[in-house]
């Protein structure tokens, strides 16, 4: 009698015929069937607690927690998220780091993963970043272009443009305003957007270029003053995501794809919007 087992996150259905035992069958046959059904129940329990690992770019630090919680509530699948600079994460993934999905801050890094065979599809845009200029001091940032070259601003924090898309966008914006060289003289480079945020919130820099999600994050206790940078002055920060080869290796493909789909759903989009991202 075939035992069909479905694993759909929560549901396990076992062929009912397992439980019918003809009186002429031996006791050991009954025991075998009991044993098998116990194993199936255990598998079901494990499937219910399935976890996927997501690598997320540093700028998603605050919003990823909300997305994680929402996804688990809807699907029962747990998400372990690790944030870091995209470059770092890509290097780790290329060297076998056990992630199932990668949420980048740009399109280039996920493309690199497709080229190196870590992902078999092109990255898809799940959100677009919004660059802001931000300070712990109560200064008027409306005309930040004029302010930033004065002595009132001693240090400016920018994420390292070579490896952080928000840093690149910041420099593009400064270049457009013809201020790049002057600001470079006062620039301090954060290794990732998180480090830039540290510099801003501890007040060691006067202003910093960061993501809108920092100022929208309700968990941030520091009072921050900010101004959105006109999106016309920098190339759109298209944040791409890919499902990774590791998901297949670890048997997490279904769950990983569910998360992938979730990120493109309206539920995720509304959360992202709340944190200042522009959603496609």
């Amino acid at each position, binding site marked *: 009698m075939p035992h069909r087992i479905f694993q759909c996150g929560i549901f396990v259905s076992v062929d009912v015929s397992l439980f019918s035992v003809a009186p002429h069958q031996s006791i050991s046959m009954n025991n075998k069937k009991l044993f098998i059904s116990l194993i199936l129940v255990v598998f079901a329990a494990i499937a219910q607690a399935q976890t996927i690992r997501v690598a997320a770019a540093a700028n998603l630090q605050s919003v990823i927690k909300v997305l994680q919680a929402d996804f688990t509530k809807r699907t029962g699948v747990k998400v372990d998220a690790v944030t870091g*600079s995209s*470059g*770092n994460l*890509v*290097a780790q993934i290329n060297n076998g780091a056990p992630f199932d999905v990668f949420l980048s801050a740009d399109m280039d890094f996920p493309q*690199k993963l497709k080229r190196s065979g870590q992902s078999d599809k092109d990255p898809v845009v799940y959100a677009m970043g919004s660059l802001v200029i931000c300070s*712990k*001091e109560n200064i008027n940032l409306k005309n930040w272009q004029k302010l930033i070259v004065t002595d009132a601003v*001693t*240090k400016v*924090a920018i994420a*390292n443009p*070579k*490896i952080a898309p928000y840093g690149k966008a910041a420099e593009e914006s400064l270049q457009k305003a013809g201020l790049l060289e002057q600001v470079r003289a006062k*620039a*301090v*480079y*954060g*290794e990732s957007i998180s*480090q830039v945020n*540290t*510099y801003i919130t*501890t*007040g*060691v*820099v006067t202003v910093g270029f960061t993501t809108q999600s920092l100022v929208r994050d309700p968990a941030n206790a520091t009072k921050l003053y900010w101004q959105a940078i006109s999106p016309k002055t920098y190339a759109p920060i298209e944040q791409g995501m890919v499902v990774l080869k590791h998901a297949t290796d670890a048997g997490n493909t279904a769950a990983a794809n569910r998360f992938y789909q979730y990120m493109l759903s309206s539920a995720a989009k509304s959360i992202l919007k709340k944190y200042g991202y522009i959603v496609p």
Partner: protein
Amino acid sequence: MDWLPIFLSLKLAAVTTTLLLAIGLPLAYWLSKGGGIFKVTLEALITVPLVLPPSVLGFYLLLAFSPQHGLGGWLQRVFHLSFVFSFQGLVLASVIYSLPFMIGPIKSALQQLPANLAQASYTLGKTERQTFIHVLLPNIKASVFTAMIMTFAHTLGEFGVVLMIGGNIPGITKVASIAVYDSVEGMDYRTANHYSLLLFGITFIMVATMFIINRRNAKSPLE
């Protein structure tokens, strides 16, 4: 290859080692004389950076010298001096971070000298200072040399603290260890390799030299 980070690293290590020699010799001497709970506490405090995660040290330095308030603010207002995102900030961090490497060997060596060496010098009418310079110091030369090499090499390899308070400014705080990290992050493994090999080579030569010289000095008349 951009040589600037290498020069910066060497400059930082040289400045730090020189400063630590000037601070460390008298301090090690004072600590070697033994004393009450105050000295013991101070020595523990000096040794803490040895086991503290560098990011912790960096974090506290960041807060302590933030130009927005407190000490950092005062220094900024009065002297236009900042210890974050500046070379002097790296020097300060390196001095704190490498102090135990300078003090440790020197204090040990001083304590291993026979007590009557200094006593003989005092009976001959020499002051503590003269005794230290003419009798004690010449007899702990190998340990001083070891301490200098260890301090230099340790500062060359400094990363965590610099990452926190350096700000990665080219020519000012972007030292070789940061440059390696940067290149790896940017997936420029060729540059990362160049910097790494160079750092490894310099450090290895220094440490090997130290071991060779110490081997010859092992026949010290004190043993």
